[in-house]
């Protein structure tokens, strides 16, 4: 039982370190208590050292204060459209009119969620748990007070608060790609972010006046980061193939 607890606690460590530390503890016949203290001490020390760098602060705070609001807004937009259309055949006549906007909103959500997950995993892998927690924080806090209704055919349809987390599965794909150092090709990156930028820039220009450049760049930073990585990787592979 004690060994099981120690091995469970050791899951806090990355695989390579876990193997070495558990082996060292077994070799030195360490007691249950000292094994626990050793593993917890190591895990805490590692986390503490990570936070001495700017990366986790940037990944967590920049995502939480910029991208989350955009993700939640897009999730609610998409859900509202889907729920309206789900109202019945009478609602379907409006589908062709709403479809372009809906498609763009879906593309925007895909790009924003994927890029946010990718950036969080790439910038600070070891503090990913904290970046994701900060990113999900606003959605969790809005969950209780969430109340959005859509009117259709004299009926009021209330959206489930779970729609606030619609971006989450898409973001998990981004996190996976970031953790496995996968990078989309430059043309795929452009395909991913161009519709997003095209929609976002005029929206913010209308809403924020002369400060629109700043307000556009803020939520766009994960996309800019992705482009920067993709272009860098393309340049390196071009140099590698050069005679």
């Amino acid at each position, binding site marked *: 039982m004690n060994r099981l607890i120690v091995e469970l606690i050791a899951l806090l460590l990355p695989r*390579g370190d876990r193997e070495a530390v558990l082996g060292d503890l077994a070799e030195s016949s360490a007691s249950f208590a000292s094994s626990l203290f*050793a*593993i917890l001490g190591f895990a*805490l020390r590692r986390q503490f050292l990570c936070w001495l760098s700017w990366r986790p602060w940037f990944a967590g705070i920049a995502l939480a204060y910029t991208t989350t609001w955009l993700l939640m807004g897009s999730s609610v937009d998409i859900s509202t459209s889907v729920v309206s259309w789900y109202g019945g055949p009478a609602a379907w006549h409006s589908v062709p009119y709403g479809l372009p906007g809906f498609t763009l909103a879906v593309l925007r959500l895909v790009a924003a969620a994927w890029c946010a997950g990718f950036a969080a995993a790439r910038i600070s892998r070891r503090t990913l748990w904290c970046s994701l927690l900060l990113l999900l924080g606003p959605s969790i806090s809005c969950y209780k007070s969430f109340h959005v209704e859509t009117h259709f055919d004299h009926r009021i349809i209330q959206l489930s608060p779970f729609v606030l987390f619609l971006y989450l599965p898409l973001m998990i794909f981004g996190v996976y790609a970031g953790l496995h150092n996968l990078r989309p090709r430059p043309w795929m990156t452009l395909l991913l972010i161009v519709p997003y930028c095209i929609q976002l820039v005029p929206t913010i220009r209308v809403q924020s006046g002369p400060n629109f450049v700043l307000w556009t760049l803020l939520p766009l930073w994960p996309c800019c980061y992705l482009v920067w990585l993709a272009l860098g990787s393309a340049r390196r592979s071009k140099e590698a193939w050069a005679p």
Partner: protein
Amino acid sequence: MLGEFEYLILTVAATLDEDAYGAAIRAQIEQKTGRRCSIGALYTTIERLETKGLLKTWMGDATPQRGGRAKRMVRVTPKGTHAAKEFYEAITKVSIGAAWASHRPGAKA
């Protein structure tokens, strides 16, 4: 310049040579300095030294006495040897004339 604990790890790893791995380094440091060496301090310092290019680590073989777990083997790189030598020379030079230095002029051997 190296830190004191970094120098200890480099020196012990160089002394142990082929047998340098986490538990052995820790045991040697504790035995020679009489100070407790935590696993966390040891591995985070090893990682830092590896990032600086002063050490190279890799996963070794698993043994039954370790519960079938692999060792994290350590080898000092030429850059690490140079850094440790620099540290040693600096400490030796600075210590000349100090009351506790055994090789100060007139001191007993």
